[in-house]
């Protein structure tokens, strides 16, 4: 299987003399994988996501996405790179309040300069998958949190990104909405073969992933694989590992 993301020895130090937020981290992600990144606050999860998604730059080490070295990108190129390769979902949804849901989902496609007809048909089919097809004409503040997050997921997936980065996507959702969203993501992962990298500290959300990297103090200290386990057993394994982490604190 093709490797989409290659992380080699990345270190991130925000200010001199401080402990690094990421300390020589290395891992690889193949196409179609659903990766969960876990760890306590301050363990380096968000720093990792920022570095991988070209929003921030690593102090040392290299990141390759689709064999492109992120270091080689200047501001304009990294914007183009995000436009063409990356999708984002955030805890706070980050929808544009002044645009309808349909317009929000259309934004990344207009950047790719797709023709209007294609934009609309893509939005329609994806909106159905995420169960928001009846909400397309509404504004974000007319929707529930769950619907907003699904809209934001649709916006991220609509352009078929090489990797979808999700930063605590269920953080602000009630359990029903969270389950709906995770099912939709997991479906997209299996049916559309979307590669997903999700940061979460919720073991339930993490159990939807195939592989989990657990971070502590800027290092990966544990890697869990779902392999053939069903989700419930994987969930229990995750809870056990996380609680071990807490008792060893």
């Amino acid at each position, binding site marked *: 299987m093709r490797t989409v993301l290659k992380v080699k020895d990345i270190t991130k130090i925000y200010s001199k003399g401080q402990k690094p937020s990421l300390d020589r981290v290395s891992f690889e992600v193949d196409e179609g994988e659903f990766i969960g990144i876990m760890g306590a606050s301050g363990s380096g999860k968000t720093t990792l996501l920022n570095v991988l*998604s070209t*929003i921030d730059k690593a102090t040392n080490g290299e990141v390759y996405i689709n064999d492109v070295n992120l270091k080689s990108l200047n*501001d*304009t190129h990294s*914007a*183009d*790179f*995000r*436009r*063409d390769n*990356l999708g*984002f979902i955030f805890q706070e949804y*980050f*929808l*544009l*309040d*002044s*645009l*309808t849901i349909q*317009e929000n989902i*259309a*934004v*990344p*496609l*207009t*950047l790719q*300069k*797709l*023709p*209007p*007809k294609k*934009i*609309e048909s893509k939005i329609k089919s994806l909106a159905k998958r995420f169960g928001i097809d009846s909400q397309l004409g509404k*504004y974000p*503040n*007319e929707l529930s949190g769950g619907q907003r997050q699904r809209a934001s997921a649709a*916006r991220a997936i609509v352009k078929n990104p090489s990797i979808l980065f999700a930063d605590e996507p269920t953080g602000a959702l009630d359990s029903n909405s969270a389950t709906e969203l995770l099912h939709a993501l997991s479906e997209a992962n299996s049916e559309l073969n979307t590669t997903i990298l999700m940061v979460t500290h919720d073991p339930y959300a993490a159990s939807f992933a195939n592989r989990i990297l657990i971070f502590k103090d800027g290092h990966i200290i544990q890697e869990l694989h779902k392999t053939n386990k069903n989700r419930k057993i994987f969930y229990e394994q995750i809870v056990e590992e996380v609680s071990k982490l807490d008792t060893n604190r």
Partner: protein
Amino acid sequence: MNTFFMAIRNLQKNFSFYSLYLISVAFVITVFFAFTSFSVNTVMLEKISADGRVETMCTVISVFLMIFVLFYMTYSNRFFLRRRTKELGIYALMGYRKAAILSLFTFENILVCFGASLVGIICGAFAHKGIVFLISELLNLGIDNSQIQLFNLNAIIKSAGFVFVVIFILVISNSRFLYKTSLMNLVRYEKKAEKKMKFHKISAILGFAMMLVGYLLALNILTGSQSLWITIGFYQMGLLTMFIVVVGTVLFIASFLPFIIQMSKRKKAKFYTSTKIVTTPNFIYRIRSNAKTLIMLTLLSAGVLTISAVMAISLYYPIATVARIAPSEIEFRLENNIRMEDIENIISDYGFNNNDVSLLTTDIYKVKASADSLPIEYSLGASNDKKSNKVIREAGFECISFSQYKTLLEAQGKTKVLQELAPLNDDEVILMKYQPSDNTKEIGNQYTLNLNGLEKCVIVKEVSLNNAISFANSIGTLIVSDNLYLDIASTEQPFSTIVSLNGNSIKNNEDLYIALSNYLNDSPYLLGNSHRIKEIIFLSSSTFLLIGFLVVLFFIAVGSILYFNNISSVMESKSDYEILEKLGYTQKNLRKIIRKQILTFFSIPFLLGLIDCIFATMVYKTGLMQDLLENSLSQYIPVVIAIVITSIIYGIYYFVTVRACYKIALK
């Protein structure tokens, strides 16, 4: 921590945020103080106002100024309060009583107003000195600038008193806001979702239609004597048109604009572009809460532009007409008791080079005539009032010869007119018109001149506005061929002799004019070209100066409201730009979006204001100004200049705003 200390800390922390408020308030106070200093400057007022006219105007304008300053200060104060509601909510949550929060704001306001007053009074004092110096140079008033106090105590007391009143009103306005808003709303104020916009087709169409009707009514004034402006009345029509345009503008901005923008979304190929998909919905979203501000800005812009344009045209036009009212540098009627030698002596007394000065005498013969239709000039000014028995002017044509006319034009330096002048046959005449109208219709008319029983038939070869003798000395002038002129002279018609003085060395010489005026016993038939221009500038300068204060203030208000408004909307949508950046928008894309959004908000008030201004100026010029010049585009040059200056000022504001917004929204 006491309230006063907190207020100071707050100002320090938010300095960049407040600095603009401080600067704009300081600016407003500068204008106010300069104006107040001017209005209490007795040395100056004595020179430029003989009849107390300027003092009355000062009072009227100072009322306007005060209302305006008050409006501006409450507007910007309310604006900054809104931006800080979250902070207010935090104070309230921490247990501050509303009275304590109010006193915090009052302290802040006092500090800002005090700082701004200090800056404003210092700048205003110098601005006042500068203005006095400029006027005294321009009008040759010979004011000793050192006589005028830099800081006039009276003006300081007046300004300070006014600032206190403003602070008092701000406190009342703030307390109303605080006590009316619940804690919940304070905490959530900024996040309050805006209501969904409803698109009313009817009011949208009505808005557009009313503006159109308003402009058509304005255009109606051009139809001449049948125009509604004459049949119904100028002021009635003026009020009606203004009412329709104002209501139309309100509906146009609040309904029509969002309506067509919403419609424009249907053009998908245009809408689904990376810029439009953000800017179009954003505009609709913003206009919901900003329609009122935009309407106010549009009306303010229309006001500023119209006042500037009308000011420019009302100064320029009378000066331009002087070329017709007093075509020669100096001209007077030679009456019985005047001797030419004395005149020549006066001229040489003032040391002028006689080679340069041309002194021409023209005998104008009055001739009675008959015709199917005599031109209006024939009997213009002739009183038929039998009761008064005092005849101002006998009806008749006033004839001068072609070669005299030519010599006069040469002396006046009107080379262009001379080039187009074709010689006359003995039965041809040129008719000098008083006002421009459809001039071609009188060409070819026949008049029968009655020369003591002898009848001479002449045909109008051309009509002209290039009179070489002033209207005070000749109306209904006919330029006749030299032969005909000799015939007329030989029949001993009544005549008057006009002396015309021209030449570069006597231009702009007020002393010579006064000397001649004394010699001629203030004759009403004495006219001076430069003298008249000086008089016009002198008479109108104070009016323009005072209105200038208002215009400057308008500009400050419009510019800073636009600035505040755009800055705050960019601040509110800062997170939007972060999202867009994550979605792959480059800095260049984002800058384009910001620019477009600001440009829309700048251009609506400017363009609508500009259209209003063009129509208003047209109505003003057609309805209220005497029409003596040929209608040519060059008359509108001052209007164009006024508009260009306004555009430049708007442009500067635009660039400053764009830069500030880039700074806020982009890293």
